[in-house]
């Protein structure tokens, strides 16, 4: 009855692009490569829009089965796609933002020697990401899950001649693997207990189950393990460490993968499995706590970072924390909403940052920037829009989504809310810090020296631009900026919460996904045990007046926090720029800690990496393998040879000795025979 959408075409398009560019790109011109890349990613976007257009006519969830993938006994995993509101949103975001970033990248990477490789990777990423969001079962999702990991590995290490880039890529992949480990175990649990990985079957089997109020249980275990996976992919504590390093990749990559799409896969996966989480309050709590902590923690680090991209990276981590916070309190739609808006403004911010870096010739240290406002107006204005949006200035996308999350968080527990609020303040502070440092006051970089060519080969290689001077980026880069800016300004209006006179269309749209299966009492307990003052199922309309008013109040508070952040940034980085150093000096301890990101990398290094390597080398390889096993074997051999050497001395060469042996031997034989005669008889 459903019209055939041929969803498979959507991911396959970029795959084809990747293949073509990968195999032929080397020999074909940049234009050709560009054409292919844009054509196929654009096609994917177009088809996504097509799907959206025909969406209303579908009976949801809409599923497509293509082929059996694995069959082992009764267990089967198929190539199957699954489309509902949630995946539609993701689909649009991924294809849309992805397409824009493709366009941007054309300009940004134009001079790179292995241009084709870049786009081939980028398309490959699109393929895996789309597979992830369209997956009809956890295993196909896992394909995308690992695939995007691969793509990010390749793209982070795109400038592989630079060791830091290569290491960053490896780090990303391995940390993700640790997450995937959890994910896999969760899958095994699902197989063991539900015999399938199909969303339909699994959820169908889970829905009748009661909530595990008692705490730990099968679903809890599954939930937590899934969360481990999400932590890896979405850079949450404790597995966030790879994301900042991932900034070694080209900026478009950071924008697409490490801001807009891939890192949000975790959020998507958690919301996709909300059925399980809703029945595992403990797991939900874990999610919430991890999210909140990450949000705050990453934000604090963001304060002191001087690398423009790293600031954005930490802010991404912190924003993802928001999303998990939302999921953790059961506000999945809010999480997804923030995911979308975040995709817009964070993508925008990264692209803009890229454009800045591009402008100043590869410089990423904000202390060497400044006063760029006039030189690159387009970038400036778009960036401003993004900054305002993320800072949560009313009326922009970020405002609505973040506000929604905070409100729902408060409903769950004031602690979440408080931390969230502080985070919001810090966020706006470091964003405006970035903003001021980059665009205001005088230019601090050595003006033209930024262009000693090839000096920063490997880093965004814009030494390669033959021309000098700080310059606005080409159209092809500016247009996406503008579009994204518009989106991040207006994107929020799809989900204006009721309290602000809107009626949260976004939430309603997603409603069927998240409420279709919600069980009220679970919600009650889920929130109840978190001592929420208000107990109501999410998005239940119309809100009571008091609720609306309190919500308004909270909104006001968060806006206040944002403004406060702006003010502080203005004070420190525009008004009296010498202050920061003073402050830093005065509380150097804290400052150093922040600057070194709480020494987490060092900690991990000391805790896991080094012991592992040394242990394996000294104890296992040199010890067990060489000294114990091999030594034993060789000693056995030598021992035998030694024995043999000894035994040879029986062969003294002296006839009388030989006769002696014979005599003794015969005596033995005779004795034995006589004994046998006496004995057995």
């Amino acid at each position, binding site marked *: 009855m459903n019209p055939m959408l041929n969803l498979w075409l959507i991911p396959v398009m970029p795959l084809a692009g990747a293949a073509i560019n990968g195999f032929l790109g080397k020999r074909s011109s940049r234009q050709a490569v560009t054409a292919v890349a844009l054509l196929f990613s654009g096609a994917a976007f177009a088809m996504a829009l097509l799907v959206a257009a025909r969406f209303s006519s579908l009976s949801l969830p809409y599923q497509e089965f293509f082929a059996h993938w694995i069959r082992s006994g009764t267990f089967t995993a198929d190539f199957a796609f699954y489309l509902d509101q949630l995946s539609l949103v993701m689909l649009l975001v991924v294809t849309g933002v992805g397409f824009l970033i493709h366009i941007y990248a054309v300009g940004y990477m134009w001079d790179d020697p292995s241009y084709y490789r870049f786009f081939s990777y980028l398309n490959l990423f699109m393929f895996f990401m789309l597979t992830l969001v369209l997956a009809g079962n956890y295993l196909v999702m896992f394909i995308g899950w690992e695939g995007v990991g691969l793509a990010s590995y390749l793209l982070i290490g795109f400038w592989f001649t630079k060791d830091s880039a290569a290491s960053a890529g490896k780090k990303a992949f391995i940390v993700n693997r640790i997450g995937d480990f959890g994910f896999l175990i969760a899958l095994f649990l699902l197989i063991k207990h539900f015999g399938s990985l199909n969303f339909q079957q699994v959820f169908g089997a889970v829905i009748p189950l009661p909530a595990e109020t008692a705490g730990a249980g099968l679903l809890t275990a599954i939930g937590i393990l899934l969360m481990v996976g999400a932590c890896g992919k979405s850079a949450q504590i404790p597995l966030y460490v790879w994301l900042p390093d991932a900034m070694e990749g080209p900026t478009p990559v950071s924008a697409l993968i490490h801001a807009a799409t891939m890192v949000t896969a975790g959020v998507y996966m958690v919301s996709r499995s909300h059925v399980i989480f809703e029945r595992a309050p403990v797991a939900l709590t874990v999610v919430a706590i991890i999210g909140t902590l990450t949000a705050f923690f990453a934000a604090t680090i963001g304060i002191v970072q001087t690398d423009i991209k790293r600031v954005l990276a930490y802010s991404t981590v912190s924003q993802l924390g928001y999303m998990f916070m939302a999921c953790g309190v059961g506000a999945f739609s809010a999480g997804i909403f923030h995911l979308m808006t975040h995709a817009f403004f964070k993508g925008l911010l990264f692209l803009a940052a890229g454009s800045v870096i591009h402008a100043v010739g590869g410089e990423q240290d904000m202390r060497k920037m400044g006063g760029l406002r006039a030189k690159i107006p387009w970038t400036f204005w778009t960036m401003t829009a993004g900054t305002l949006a993320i800072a949560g200035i009313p009326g922009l996308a970020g405002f609505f989504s973040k506000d929604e999350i905070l409100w729902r968080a408060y409903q769950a527990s004031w602690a979440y809310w408080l931390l969230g609020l502080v985070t919001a303040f810090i966020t706006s502070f470091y964003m405006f810090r970035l903003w001021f440092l980059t665009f205001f006051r005088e230019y601090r970089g050595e003006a033209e020296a930024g262009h000693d060519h090839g000096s920063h080969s490997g880093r965004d290689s814009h030494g390669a631009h033959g021309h000098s001077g700080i310059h606005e980026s080409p159209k092809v880069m500016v247009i996406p900026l503008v579009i994204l800016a518009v989106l991040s300004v207006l994107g929020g209006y799809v989900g204006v919460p009721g309290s602000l006179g809107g009626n949260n269309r976004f939430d309603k749209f997603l409603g069927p996904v998240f409420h279709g299966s919600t069980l009220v009492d679970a919600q009650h307990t889920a929130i109840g045990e978190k001592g929420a003052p208000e107990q109501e199922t999410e998005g239940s309309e119309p809100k009571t007046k008091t609720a609306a008013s309190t919500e308004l109040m909270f909104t006001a508070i968060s806006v206040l926090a944002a403004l406060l952040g702006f003010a502080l940034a203005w004070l420190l980085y525009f008004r009296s720029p010498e202050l920061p150093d003073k402050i830093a000096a005065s509380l150097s301890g804290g400052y150093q800690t922040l600057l070194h990101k709480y020494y987490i990398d060092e900690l991990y290094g000391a805790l896991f990496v080094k012991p592992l390597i040394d242990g394996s080398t000294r104890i296992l390889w040199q010890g067990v393998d060489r000294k114990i096993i091999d030594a034993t074997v060789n000693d056995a051999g030598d021992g035998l040879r030694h024995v043999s050497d000894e035994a040879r001395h029986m062969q003294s060469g002296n006839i009388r000795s030989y006769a*002696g042996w014979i*005599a003794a031997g015969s005596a033995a034989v005779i004795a034995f025979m006589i004994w046998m005669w006496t004995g057995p008889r």
Partner: protein
Amino acid sequence: MSFHLILFLIFGAVCVGGAINLLAQRHPINSALSLIAVMAALAGDYLLLGAEFVAAVQLIVYAGAIMVLFVFVIMLLNAGVEEETKGSRVAILVGVPGMLIGGVLVAWVVLLRSGTEAVPIGALPGHPIDIAQLLFHDFLLPFEVTSILILIAIMGAVVLASKPESAAGKVE
């Protein structure tokens, strides 16, 4: 204490004495002579056992031919008194005890087996005709085969004792 037994004891004593003397003597010639004594005494024992034929052969072939050959070789190689070299501890530490144990065991078995049933003198008629009967009829094949044995012995002796043509240097 029959006359028979006395004779046996005499011959036996000679045997034992000769055997021990063979071991005790340091010069091969003496050993050879004591061995001859042993053989002669044995011939006496054979007579006691009524094996005249064997006794005769013993004296003629063994004591006569073989031992003469020995003495001849001793002379030829003018073997002197053997020097007391410490060649082999094994022979003394392993071999001799083994020999003793084996000997004792066998002796024990012998006593155990055939208590004291006596062998009468002339117990069996070692009549030449009977012997011939056996030798040339029942044991015809072995008898013939011995000829090959002897042939080989002769050939071997010739081969080994004759000077190797290409080893002239080695002899002197």
